[in-house]
């Protein structure tokens, strides 16, 4: 199956025609915030007023994706999110406390559910087709993508709008900061891989893909495979998972031209990437992406989006140009990502 179109709102200038010629946006501090477009160009102003930031981001990214694919009504809409619409949830719960569980406004409650964005897209498109949302922590996007792939493989859909959305808000950032997820002190996003401390940088994003059964002459990439595994016991198990995944797809490691890893600057979490770079992935050209989008449970969407762009435009984009590149003819990309060392995922993409 093929990635025909994409839409991505992230802490980089990814909305529009992609990042190929832009330098990375530099952030100082442990929080990367999405760069939002002018929503009125994509969403009816009458609808915008009820949408919180994450809903606008999700809907706009989905609309751009559909626009690029020239598809008005997809056969299915599948979304993934770990946190859901946090801002609306926070607003609703705060008002419950503030007004002693009375006088609750309906809008925040209605918009706080995890399937809000998928539902809103369906409503805007007047699309009554299959619509599902997956809320599986660090596997939320992977579960949504697996569902989309199964719909296509089982001929229940010929094209699926699939994506993931997660936001960071002040309250969640404060809580996760207290829990030690993020680096302390002055940290620049471009320097996280040189860091020797624990923790990473917070991120967010809304990324959608139009997955199609049939090839077209404008596809970004072919999505060959997806695999997830939970809490591997040790590095040997991860290596085994990588080998099994490649074997299942009849791919030899020598055929892989580029590895995209989910390194995020956390000295503990990055160990496994370093181990793999000296074993099963030794000698492979490797790039990282979380300095661009930060860490969040559905951050792997950014990696898939990046892989798709690299395969389509046949070059490494300027936003990762500071990373050494020797490979010119990139035909197969392996993405390996893990979230908190718990949720591990592998993606295999190839050029069309």
């Amino acid at each position, binding site marked *: 199956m093929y990635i025909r179109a994409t839409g991505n709102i992230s802490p980089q200038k990814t909305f529009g025609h992609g990042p190929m010629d832009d330098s990375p946006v530099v952030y100082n501090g442990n929080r990367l915030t999405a760069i939002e477009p002018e929503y009125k160009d994509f969403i009816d*102003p*009458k609808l*915008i*007023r*009820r949408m919180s930031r994450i809903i606008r981001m999700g809907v706009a990214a989905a609309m751009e994706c559909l626009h690029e694919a020239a598809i008005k009504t997809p056969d299915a809409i599948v979304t993934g999110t770990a946190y859901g619409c946090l801002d609306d949830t926070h607003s609703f719960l705060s008002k419950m406390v503030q*007004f002693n569980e*009375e*006088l*609750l*406004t*309906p*809008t925040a409650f*209605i918009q706080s559910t995890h399937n809000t964005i998928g539902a809103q897209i369906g409503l805007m498109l007047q699309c009554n087709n299959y619509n599902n949302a997956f809320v599986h922590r660090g596997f939320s996007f992977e579960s949504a993508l697996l569902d989309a792939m199964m719909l296509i493989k089982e001929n229940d859909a010929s094209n699926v709008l699939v994506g993931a959305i997660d936001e960071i808000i002040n309250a969640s950032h404060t809580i996760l900061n207290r829990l030690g997820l993020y680096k302390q002190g002055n940290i620049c996003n471009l320097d996280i891989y040189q860091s020797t401390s624990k923790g990473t940088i917070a991120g967010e994003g809304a990324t959608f893909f139009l997955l199609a059964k049939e090839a077209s002459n404008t596809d970004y990439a072919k999505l060959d495979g997806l695999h997830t595994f939970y809490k591997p016991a040790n590095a040997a198990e991860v290596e085994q998972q990588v080998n099994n995944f490649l074997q299942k797809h009849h791919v030899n490691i020598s055929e892989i031209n580029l590895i995209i890893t989910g390194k995020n600057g956390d000295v503990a979490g990055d160990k496994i990437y370093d181990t793999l770079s000296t074993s099963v992935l030794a000698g492979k050209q490797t790039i990282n992406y979380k300095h661009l989008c930060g860490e969040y449970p559905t951050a792997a969407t950014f990696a898939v989006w990046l892989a798709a762009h690299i395969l389509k435009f046949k070059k490494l984009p300027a936003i990762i140009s500071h990373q050494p590149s020797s490979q010119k003819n990139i035909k197969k990309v392996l993405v390996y990502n893990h979230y908190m060392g718990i949720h591990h995922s592998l993606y295999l993409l190839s050029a069309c």
Partner: protein
Amino acid sequence: MDKLMSDLKSQIIAQLNLQDTKPEDIGDDQPLFVEGLGLDSIDALELIVLLQQHYKIKLSNAEEGPKVFKTVRTMAEYITAHQAQNA
């Protein structure tokens, strides 16, 4: 009454997040629902909450809704009448 209507317009804009709408854009006798401001049933619930939060008025009879929330003026009249009744 004018002061109350002016306050109501600002409160409606804030409660319903009516972006790009200023209090002076809302006419005193302009219909709030369908034509006019184009509000819908979810907004009606928000307006009920607004009355409770700002004026301590609980709209107990749902059938009164369409009459009370017809325009900013009808809302102001309802609030004034309710306050006079409880004075």
